[in-house]
Structures are given as structure tokens and as C-alpha cells.
């Protein structure tokens, strides 16, 4: 266990950390005009980190605080892809707004670093540190558009509620430590096997899950989501909805499955309730929305419910379903937000669903991309969404969670209504004033990639399924 070995295992994160600091220096010297260069460099950094993540082998570092396994590798691939897409989208967004700041790519890289550390965390302190690094960067990013009152409000709301949830989680962690005497995930699992589950440990688990549920915006800790998603700049909303959600949910998986296999009956109940409530709220509350970003916020609450359903199953098939779902969810959502970012009229972003009216006649390609992703999110065949949902529901059925699985199918039928309403507005309503032509190459490219993935996904499903399977195996041996 030499320091060289530790640093070698940590190499993907070191690239991000050192790179972010180097970019910061360049930005500090050259000012805001270097924002374009820094954006490209940060994409290179993220790509380099992703490449190193893929080629290095498994291993642990720093006395087991950090672990690199197939699970971490899979989730990091999804996170880093989303981050790279968001950096490009953010640059495009702010250059159209004429308010580029060089700190933006640096903060996104640092947030991605926090997410990488989160999914590799193997004890509770590492978990907390990664989570805080991510959250702090996200608070700033949410408030990044200083001229907008809504953006500042989003940042402040996210910060106050986020700190509260971190406090609760930390309290839970201290109880877990108090009742097991260790912070190590494997250590906690070992103590539970030996001594059983004490009531204090359950209290700690509840507080821990409350804090984590806030981060994935699961009901009843979802209140901040619509306001923050609506107020943040669109590319930052995309970042919150994809990379941050994937990292937090991956963290939930590891922090529940690895330390608490002996307390499965205790956490299963909590996850079942959270999952059912999130699915129901996501389906029903989105119906009345007129702002597309608010709608996507409720949609993401619902999707977290479906993903948690896989965790509730507590089996390897369930975890594989969750990971598969996360990959599908983040790829599709990035595409949706790229389309939302393309909604600009007269040089100003517009966000209402009614603004999309007749898009099929004014911008057929954009409308097609939007439609493909909406249908995929709603879970209609033959797009990616139906498969992701099917794996989750099958895993739940195998684990005898019949009621919950049927409930999930019903809520996704309700949810299909509001996704289909957007398709209807785009294809059958009288055209509104057309959007600006100039949406930028990155937004177009990301929307195209996401559409191709959504449509052609079924052809290579076995590949992603294999990766998700190995990743699930690494977690639940």
C-alpha cells in the first residue's frame, strides 16, 4: 500500500483536480476571453479522465477510502459523458447571452470531480467529502446567471435546503459510527453480521437516507426541484438533472447495498415508500405544468422513483436494472435539455410548452429529436425507455414486489400523458413564431447523438446490459 499505488488508482481524479487548477490559473491570467479555450480544454480533461478510468484496473486506495471497481467505472462513464456535454452546452448558452465567464468550465470540472469521488467512496467520510465538493460547486452553478433574480433564488434555495440535508446526513453518519464503531462500508457490514441491527443504527440509516433522498430529489424531499430546475440556466439544469442525479443515485446504491446487507428489511421498507411516492408525484404533478423545465423537474422525480424500484428489489437483477436505467435516463435527458436550449426566439430563451406549437412544420429535425426523446421517456416501444423500465419491473416482480411493480406500470401510463401532450403540441397545433436558426453546433451535435442513441438503442442492448451486469456484480457479490 505505497503512496504511488494509491495515486495510481486515483489517477482519473487527479487528472480532473490538477487540470481544474491549471485551467483556473490560465483563466485568472487571461480573463473571460479565454472561456472558449478553457471549455475545449475541460472537455479534453474530462475525456482523458474517462479514458484512464476505462483502462486502469480494479483497486483500492487510502486505506480503503477510495475504491475503483466495475460499478465505479460504469457510473463514471455516464457521469463524465454528461459533464462533457454540459460544459459544451453551457459555453454555447452563455456565449449567446454574451456573459461568458471563465470560471464556468472550471466549476463544472470540479463538480465532476466531486461526483467521481462520490461513486468511488468506500467509507462514510469519503462519501460526505465527495458529496460536499459536488454540492458546493452545484450551488454556485445554479446561481451562475447573476443578472437573473430567478437564478439567484434557485441558487439560494438549493444552498439552504442542501445544507440542511447534508446536516441530517452527517447526523445519521455520526449515529452509524456511534453504534458500529467504524466508518468503513465493509466494517459496518461486518459489525451488523456480528451484533445484529440495533435501534440506533436504524436511526442513523434513516437520517442517512433522508439526506441522500434530498440529493436525488425523491419524495418527500423533492420540494426544491421544480424551482431550482426552472431558475437555473438551462445547461446547468441539464447538469443537475443528469450527472448529479446519476452520481447521487450511484452513491445511494453503494451506501445502502455495501454496508447494510444485514439490514435489508429495514431499508427496503424506506426505499419502497420513497419509490412509490416519487413515481406517483412525478406522474400527477407534471400534468398541470406549462413551463417545460418545471415539467422536466417532475419527470426527473418520477424517474428517480422508477430507479429506486430496482434498488427496492435488492437483487443483482434489480441493481443491474438501476444502472441500465441511469445510463438511459442521463443520455436521453441530456438530449431533451439540448432541445430545450435550442428554444430561443429573438435572441432570448423561451421555456413554455406553448412555444413549441407547430415545431414540426418550422423545424422538423428538432421536433423529431424532441419527439423521439419524449416517447422514450414515457416508455413507449420500441425506444430505449421501454427496455429500461421493463428490466426494473421484471426485477421487482422477481423480488415479489408485485403491488409496487403494478403501481409503477400504472404511474408510467399516467406519465405518458404529459409526454405525449408535448408531441401533440409540436405536431398538431398551429405553428407559433419560429425559433432562431442559430442554436450552435454543440447543441445540435448533442441532440443528434442522444436521438441516435434513443432510436438505435435496441440494436446493441446486449452490450450495455453486459456492462451494467458486471457493475452490479461488483457491488452485490
Amino acid at each position, binding site marked *: 500500500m505505497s503512496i504511488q499505488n494509491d495515486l495510481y488508482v486515483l489517477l482519473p481524479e487527479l487528472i480532473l483536480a490538477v487540470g481544474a487548477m491549471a485551467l483556473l490559473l490560465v483563466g485568472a491570467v487571461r480573463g473571460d476571453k479565454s472561456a472558449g479555450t478553457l471549455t475545449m480544454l475541460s472537455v479534453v480533461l474530462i475525456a482523458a479522465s474517462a479514458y484512464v478510468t476505462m483502462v486502469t484496473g480494479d483497486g483500492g486506495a*487510502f486505506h480503503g*477510502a477510495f475504491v475503483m471497481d466495475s460499478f465505479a467505472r460504469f457510473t463514471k462513464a455516464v457521469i463524465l459523458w454528461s459533464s462533457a456535454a454540459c460544459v459544451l452546452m453551457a459555453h454555447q448558452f452563455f456565449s449567446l447571452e454574451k456573459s461568458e465567464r471563465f*470560471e464556468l468550465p472550471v*466549476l463544472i470540472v*470540479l463538480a465532476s470531480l466531486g461526483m467521481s469521488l462520490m461513486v468511488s467512496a468506500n467509507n462514510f467520510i469519503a462519501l460526505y467529502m465527495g458529496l460536499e*465538493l459536488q454540492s458546493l460547486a452545484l450551488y454556485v452553478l445554479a446561481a451562475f446567471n447573476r443578472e437573473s433574480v430567478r437564478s439567484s433564488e434557485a441558487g439560494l434555495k438549493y444552498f439552504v435546503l442542501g445544507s440542511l440535508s447534508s446536516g441530517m446526513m452527517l447526523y445519521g453518519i455520526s*449515529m452509524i459510527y*456511534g453504534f458500529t464503531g467504524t466508518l468503513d462500508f465493509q466494517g459496518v457490514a461486518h459489525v451488523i453480521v456480528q451484533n445484529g441491527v440495533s*435501534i440506533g443504527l436504524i*436511526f442513523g440509516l434513516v437520517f442517512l437516507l433522508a439526506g441522500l433522498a434530498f440529493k436525488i430529489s425523491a419524495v418527500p424531499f423533492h420540494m426544491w426541484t421544480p424551482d431550482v430546475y426552472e431558475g437555473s440556466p438551462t445547461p446547468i439544469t441539464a447538469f443537475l438533472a443528469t450527472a448529479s442525479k446519476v452520481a447521487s443515485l450511484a452513491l445511494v446504491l453503494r451506501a445502502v447495498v455495501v454496508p447494510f446487507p444485514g439490514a435489508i428489511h429495514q431499508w427496503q421498507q424506506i426505499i419502497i415508500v420513497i419509490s412509490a411516492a416519487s413515481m406517483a408525484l412525478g406522474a400527477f404533478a407534471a400534468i398541470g405544468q406549462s413551463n417545460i423545465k418545471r415539467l422536466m423537474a417532475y419527470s426527473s422525480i418520477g424517474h428517480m422513483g422508477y430507479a429506486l424500484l430496482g434498488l427496492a428489489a435488492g437483487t443483482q437483477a434489480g441493481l443491474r436494472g438501476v444502472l441500465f436505467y441511469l445510463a438511459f435516463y442521463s443520455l436521453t435527458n441530456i438530449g431533451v435539455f439540448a432541445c430545450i436550449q435550442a428554444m430561443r426566439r429573438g435572441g432570448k430563451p423561451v421555456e413554455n410548452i406553448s412555444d413549441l406549437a407547430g415545431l414540426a412544420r418550422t423545424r422538423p429535425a428538432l421536433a423529431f429529436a424532441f419527439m423521439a426523446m419524449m416517447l422514450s421517456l414515457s416508455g413507449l416501444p420500441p425506444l430505449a425507455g421501454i427496455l429500461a423500465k421493463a428490466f426494473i419491473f421484471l426485477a421487482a416482480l422477481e423480488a415479489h414486489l408485485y403491488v409496487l411493480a403494478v403501481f409503477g406500470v400504472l404511474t408510467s401510463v399516467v406519465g405518458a400523458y404529459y409526454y405525449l401532450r408535448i408531441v401533440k403540441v409540436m405536431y398538431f397545433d398551429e405553428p407559433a413564431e419560429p425559433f432562431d436558426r442559430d442554436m450552435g453546433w454543440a447543441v445540435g451535435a448533442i441532440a443528434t447523438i442522444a436521438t441516435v442513441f434513443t432510436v438505435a438503442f435496441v440494436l446493441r442492448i446486449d452490450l450495455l446490459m453486459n456492462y451494467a451486469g458486471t457493475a452490479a456484480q461488483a457491488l452485490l457479490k
Partner: protein
Amino acid sequence: MFQTIAFYLFSAVMLVAAFMVIASRNPVHSVLFLILAFFNAAGLFVLTGAEFLAMILVVVYVGAVAVLFLFVVMMLDVDFVELKKGALSYLPTGGLLGLALLTELVIVAGVWRMAPASHAALQSATPAGLSNTQALGRILYTDYIYYFQIAGLVLLVAMIGAIVLTLRHRPGVRRQSIPVQNARTPEMAMELVDAKPGEGA
């Protein structure tokens, strides 16, 4: 005996001070009570043998955070009386919630058992021949270097965030430029005017 008296003294003063922080009318008094609470908490740390934490509490919280609070209170025009008008009216609901939580925690404390190994660990809180601070320093930069470095990154993000969200470059502000000042020559600074007698310059 002395330790017990000191414990109750520190605890009692701290609780009263903490209550006065939220109860006092004048915000400056609130901050001063907060400082008092911090000092007593530091005293409690000293009693448990954690002198490093005690000093950090005084240096960081009293030295930096409390002074920062004072700055905010005195420089910003926030009407604290108006802000706190409703604060005590939430006491019944808040108190009830707190009581419920307290009851639950008492249940948790009821099942608490001291692990046998903890007694031994408590008796020798630090390795023999080392002070508390030395012992912390030895592991902080070796075993815990990973967490230490992430904490550094978190602070970096906080710093970037504070600058990004608050720094504005206003045009038309006169700034000091040392090179320009140093490069001034008598020709740039002075103008010789040949004033005629009886007329002004």
C-alpha cells in the same frame, strides 16, 4: 471535583449564552453572546483533553467567524428586529418538534452500550509521549491525506464561488496603479504658469 464544577459551569454558561443569541434584541449583543458560547464550548473541549479542538474553536470561530458576523451585522443594513419578529412565535411548534425528536433520541440512547474497547481508548486518548496536537498532525497528513486534500478542494470551490457570485468590475472606479505612480515625472505632475502680478494663475 474541580473538573465536575468546571463542566457544569461551562455547560450552564454555554446554554444560557446560546439561548441569548436568539433571544436578545440587539444583533451586536447576539454576536457577543455567540462568542461567549464558543469560548465555553472550547472550555468543554479542554476538559475532555482535546486541546487542539479547543484552540481551533477559539481561533477559527471566535477569531474569524464571529468577527465576520460582526462585520455583517454592522455593515449591512438588515433590520434584524423586523426579521426576528416572528422567531419566538414559532417556539411552540418548534419546541414540540424538538421534544418529539428528543424523545426518540432518548430511546436511542437507552439502547446505548459502551463497547469494551472504548474504555481503553478513552484512557489513552493520545499515544504516549505525544501531545494531542502532535498526534492529530501525524495522522492528518499521512493516513487522512485523502480527506485533507478533498477538504482543500472544497475550500477552493467555495472561494471561486464567492468571487464568481459577488465580484463585479465596475467601470469608472479609480484604482491605484503603482507603476503609473512610480513613473510620474515632474513634467507630468506640475505645470509652470507664469503668473502676472495682480492676476491669478
